[in-house]
C-alpha cells in the first residue's frame, strides 16, 4: 500500500496562505494529475508531498505513514523536475545511482539497478556521458531514470515535459504512460496542460487559487464538470459560455443566439434569474440561415476545423467542424446543438445546475 492522503493541508508563506486546506485521497498505483493555471498552487502542493516545502497545517501520509514532518528522503518519494535538475558534474550512470549511494547501498546492487532503469528507458548507450552531452529528451529520460533507480513508493513529476518541444512532448507523454503501466507505482504529476492531464491521468485534481475545484476521472470531469472553471479548463478548445436568463419553467433565453430559447430538464432558478449556458465546441454545428450570428473566420487543422462565430452580444462562439463545407466569412449561420448536451451554471456562484 502506498497511496497518498492529504488531510486539511495548508501552506502559508508568512502571512500569505497559498494552499487552503486540501483534502485528497490518491490510491495505490494511481496516476494522479494536478492541473490548473499557473499560480494555482499545484507545484507547491507537490513540493509539500515531496517534503521540499514544509506543511504549515494538516497532515500528509504516504502508504499509511504520517510523513508531515519527515525529511524528503524518508518519505519514499522520487521527484522529476521541470528543469531535469541533473547533477552536471556526474555521468548519467552516477546521476542515476546517486540516491542509492547516499543510502549506502552496495556498489554491485547500485549498478544492477541503474542498468535495469537504463534498459527500461533505453539509456544504455549514454551511461558514461555527462548531461551536457545529451539532448533535452534524453536528459528528461535520465531524470526519470534517476527516479526509477531509487525504487520509490511514489513518483512525483513537476511539469516534466514543459521544457521539451511539441513533438518530443507527445513522445515522452506516451513513454510516461507506458512506464506507469510497467512499474505500477503511484505517480503524481503536475501540469498546466489539460491535454497531458486528460491523456495520462487515472484521476485529475483541478486546482485554482490553492483550492481543489474538482477531483475525478478525466472523462468524468469532461462530461460532468462541477462548475464553470472546470468546464472551461478541461477540453480543447474550451467550452463556450453564453449569458442567459430563465424565461419560463424549463426555458432559458440566450441573447447571443438571437434570443433563442433553450428547453431543458435541469432544475432552473426563478424567472429572470441570470444563468450561464455552456456549449462544447465539439457538440455544436452550423448551417447557413438568416441569423444574427456570423462566421468571422475558419481555422483548418486538417482533420477538423474551428469556426469562430460573432454574436450580437459580442460573445464569441467556437464550433468544431468535421467536414469542410465552405461557408464564406461574414455569412449568417444558425448554431445547431443537442439540448441534452447543454450545460447550465448559476451566474452567481458559477456552480453547475443539475
Amino acid at each position: 500500500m502506498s497511496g497518498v492522503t492529504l488531510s486539511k493541508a495548508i501552506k502559508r508563506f508568512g502571512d500569505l496562505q497559498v494552499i487552503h486546506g486540501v483534502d485528497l485521497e490518491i490510491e495505490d498505483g494511481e496516476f494522479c494529475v494536478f492541473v490548473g493555471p499557473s499560480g494555482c498552487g499545484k507545484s507547491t502542493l507537490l513540493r509539500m508531498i515531496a517534503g521540499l516545502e514544509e506543511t504549515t497545517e494538516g497532515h500528509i501520509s504516504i502508504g499509511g505513514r504520517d510523513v508531515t514532518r519527515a525529511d524528503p528522503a524518508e518519505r519514499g518519494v522520487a521527484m522529476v523536475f521541470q528543469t531535469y535538475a541533473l547533477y552536471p558534474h556526474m555521468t548519467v550512470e552516477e546521476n542515476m545511482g546517486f540516491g542509492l549511494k547516499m543510502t549506502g547501498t552496495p556498489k554491485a546492487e547500485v549498478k544492477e539497478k541503474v542498468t535495469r532503469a537504463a534498459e527500461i528507458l533505453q539509456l544504455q548507450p549514454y551511461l558514461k556521458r555527462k548531461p551536457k552531452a545529451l539532448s533535452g529528451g534524453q536528459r528528461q529520460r535520465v531524470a526519470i531514470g534517476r527516479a526509477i533507480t531509487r525504487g520509490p513508493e511514489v513518483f512525483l513529476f513537476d511539469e516534466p515535459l514543459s521544457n521539451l518541444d511539441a513533438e518530443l512532448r507527445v513522445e515522452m507523454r506516451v513513454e510516461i504512460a507506458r512506464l506507469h503501466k510497467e512499474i505500477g507505482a503511484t505517480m503524481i504529476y503536475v501540469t498546466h496542460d489539460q491535454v497531458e492531464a486528460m491523456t495520462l491521468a487515472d484521476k485529475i485534481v483541478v486546482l485554482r487559487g490553492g483550492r481543489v475545484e474538482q477531483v475525478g476521472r478525466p472523462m468524468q470531469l469532461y462530461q460532468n464538470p462541477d462548475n464553470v472553471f472546470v468546464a472551461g479548463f478541461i477540453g480543447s478548445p474550451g467550452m463556450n459560455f453564453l449569458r442567459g436568463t430563465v424565461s419560463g419553467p424549463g426555458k432559458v433565453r440566450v441573447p447571443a443566439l438571437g434570443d433563442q430559447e433553450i428547453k431543458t430538464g435541469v432544475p432552473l432558478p426563478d424567472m429572470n434569474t441570470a444563468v450561464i449556458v455552456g456549449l462544447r465546441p465539439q457538440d455544436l454545428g452550423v448551417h447557413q440561415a438568416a441569423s444574427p450570428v456570423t462566421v468571422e473566420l475558419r481555422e483548418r487543422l486538417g482533420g477538423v476545423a474551428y469556426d469562430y462565430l460573432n454574436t450580437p452580444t459580442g460573445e464569441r462562439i467556437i464550433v468544431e467542424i468535421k467536414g469542410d463545407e465552405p461557408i464564406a466569412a461574414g455569412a449568417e449561420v444558425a448554431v445547431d446543438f443537442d439540448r441534452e448536451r447543454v450545460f447550465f451554471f448559476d451566474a452567481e456562484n458559477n456552480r453547475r445546475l443539475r
Partner: protein
Amino acid sequence: MNPALQGLLTIAIGVGACVGYFYFANQILDKVIFPARGPNAGRNINRANHIRPWLFLFPAIFALGLYLAYPVVETLRLSLSDREQGGAFVGLDNYSQMMSEPKFWEAMRNNMLWLIVVPAMSTAFGLLAAQLTDRIGWGNIAKSLIFMPMAISFVGAGVIWKLVYETRPDDIAQIGVLNAILAGLGGAPQTWLTIPFWNNFFLMIVLVWIQTGFAMVILSAALRGIPEETVEAAIVDGANPFQIFFKIKVPQIMPTIVVVWTTITLTVLKIFDIVFAMTNGQWETQVLANYMYDKLFRAGDWGVGSAAAIIIMLLVSPILVWNVHNARKEMR
C-alpha cells in the same frame, strides 16, 4: 604655483594630449595619408580602416612595451652580466652564485610553503564563509566584515599584525593581542616573529586574512549560480547537508575554485610587502621577492638580484597562463 593647480594643470595637459593624439592622428590618416576622395577613394578607406586600430592601440602598446616588456629583457640581460666586471657578460654565473647561497634556498622553501598554505587556507575559509553567510540574516554584514581587509594595503596589514604579535618584557603590560591573551591565561610572552619555521605561518595568516574576503566574494557568487533544483534533487535523493555541499555544490563550482586558487597563488608568488614590513626576511622568513629586493637595492648586486627576479617570473608565468586559460573557459 599652488600644488593643487599644478595637479589640475597636469591632468588637463595629460588628458588633452591623449584626446589630441587620437583626434589628430585620425585626421591625418583620413585626410592626408589616405584621403577618402580621388580615384582611389574606396581603396583608401579600406586601407585607413586597416591602419586605424593600430594607430589607436599604439600609445597602450608603447607604454606596455616600455614599462613591462623592456624591463623583462633588461632584467634578463642584467642577470647575465656582472657589476664588478663593468657589466661584462658572465653567462649563468649569477645564477650559480645565487644557487649556492643558503638564503636563496630558504627563500625558495618559504615561497613554496606560502604557495601551498595561503591559497589553500584562503580558498577553504572563503568557501566556508560564502556557504555560511548565504544562509543567515546578517550574512551580508558578516560578508562586509570579512571582505574589509581587502581594502587594506599589504604594508598596512603587516603593521597591524605586527602589533598583534608585539612583545613587551615580562613585567610590563602586553600591548600585543596574542601575548596579552597568553599573559591573561598565565603564560609567558613569546616573541612570535622570531620563532623559526612557525613564524612563516604567522606571516601567512596576514595574507590569508586579506585574501579570504576575495575568495568569499567570488565563491559566494558562484554558489548562488548553482541551480536550486540540483540541490533539491539531492535532498530528495537523501543527501545530508555535508554531502550536498561536497558532492553537489563544490563540484559544480570547481572551475571557479580553480580560478580563485590560481589568482591567489599569483599574489603569493610575488609576496613581498608583508615580509618586508614585519620581519624583513630575518629569522628564516625570507621569500624570493624580498631576497631580490635585498640583493638589488640593499646590496646593490644587480646581477644576482635580477637573477632572482627572473626566477620569480619563471615561477609565475605558467600559473598566469593557466589562470587566464581557466578564466576564459569559465566565461564561455
